[in-house]
């Protein structure tokens, strides 16, 4: 078994399942929002009233948390595919390849900060 401490869950299966479940939540949220926009063309007051509903706040929070975890799993996969020594050495030379771990950690840290910011910002908007 290959071990990793930076992936989202404790196992490959949990990450895989989490990405599917969050994908379904995001699809449902997209359908609801698109439906509201296309069918009701709400003005500001109606839009605000919709987001004052507890179910909509909860649904939106679920969607924000889904984006954050879905994106983390995806970006983590991208970083461990491409920001690794042998790939960077071939593509950009040995000097960059030697810094692969640093670049990968920096990318992962930046992704985590951005996603965490989105979650906090989303909560502020919903309950602010």
């Amino acid at each position, binding site marked *: 078994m290959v071990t990793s401490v930076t*992936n989202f869950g404790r*196992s*490959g*299966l949990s990450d895989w399942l989490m990405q599917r479940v969050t994908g379904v939540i995001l699809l449902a949220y997209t359908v609801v929002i698109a439906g509201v926009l296309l069918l009701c063309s709400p003005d500001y007051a109606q839009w605000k009233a919709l987001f004052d509903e507890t179910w909509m706040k909860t649904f939106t929070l679920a969607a924000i948390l889904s984006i954050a975890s879905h994106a983390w799993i995806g970006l983590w996969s991208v970083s461990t595919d491409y920001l690794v020594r042998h790939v960077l050495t071939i593509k950009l030379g040995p000097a960059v390849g030697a810094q692969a771990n640093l670049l990968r950690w920096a990318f992962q840290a930046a992704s985590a900060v951005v996603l965490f910011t989105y979650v906090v910002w989303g909560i502020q908007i919903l309950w602010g």
Partner: protein
Amino acid sequence: MLNVSIYRYNPETDAEPYMQDLEVDTAGKDLMVLDVLELIKAEDTTTSYRRSCREGVCGSDGMNINGKNGLACIMPLSEAMKGGNKLVLRPLPGLPVIRDLVVDMSLFYKQYEKVKPFLINDTPAPAIERLQSPEEREKLDGLYECILCACCSTACPSFWWNPDRFIGPSGLLQAYRFLADSRDTSTEQRLADLDDPFSVFRCHGIQNCVSVCPKGLNPTKAIGHIRNMLLTSAT
């Protein structure tokens, strides 16, 4: 005359690999790609490639033929060139080149070794043999036929990026071959060994492996079965 472009690299004499353009007289026949290589080698004995059975059984002559991995011995020129006029031969992608079309398959075999490709059964051995019903035996069809030519794994981007951590389509097909075997008692341990973010789950289902397999096997389907087994055992 057939136009052939062949990847050449001898680390002892060449600073870097290059493509050598040749003309080969095929006498108008629809030869197999391996036959063309034999004609080339008759003229230039330094041309290096692996071959053995020349009938698609040993899996030695996997190579990249006009952009697609395949076995040179069972690939007719007409199929390889699809109406074009040039045959382009390169080594299997993603593995280190030893010389010309010969690649170092150590990482490929290391992944194969990881899945413990042998029956594990701790129960006392029966007097004659461990019997299987026809239905149980049928589950191994489409799995046991793999000849380890590496065409699939070296066509897989996930294997290119993580050849040390992702088992790859070939190894996973073999993993499922033993997970599906009614005589094997190590299912739980085998699944536990695969449940990390790399070994199985780097497969994103793009099915390059299915499209190149010279034996017509379906590693993506086998990987789906492994995923379902993991899901069933963990939920």
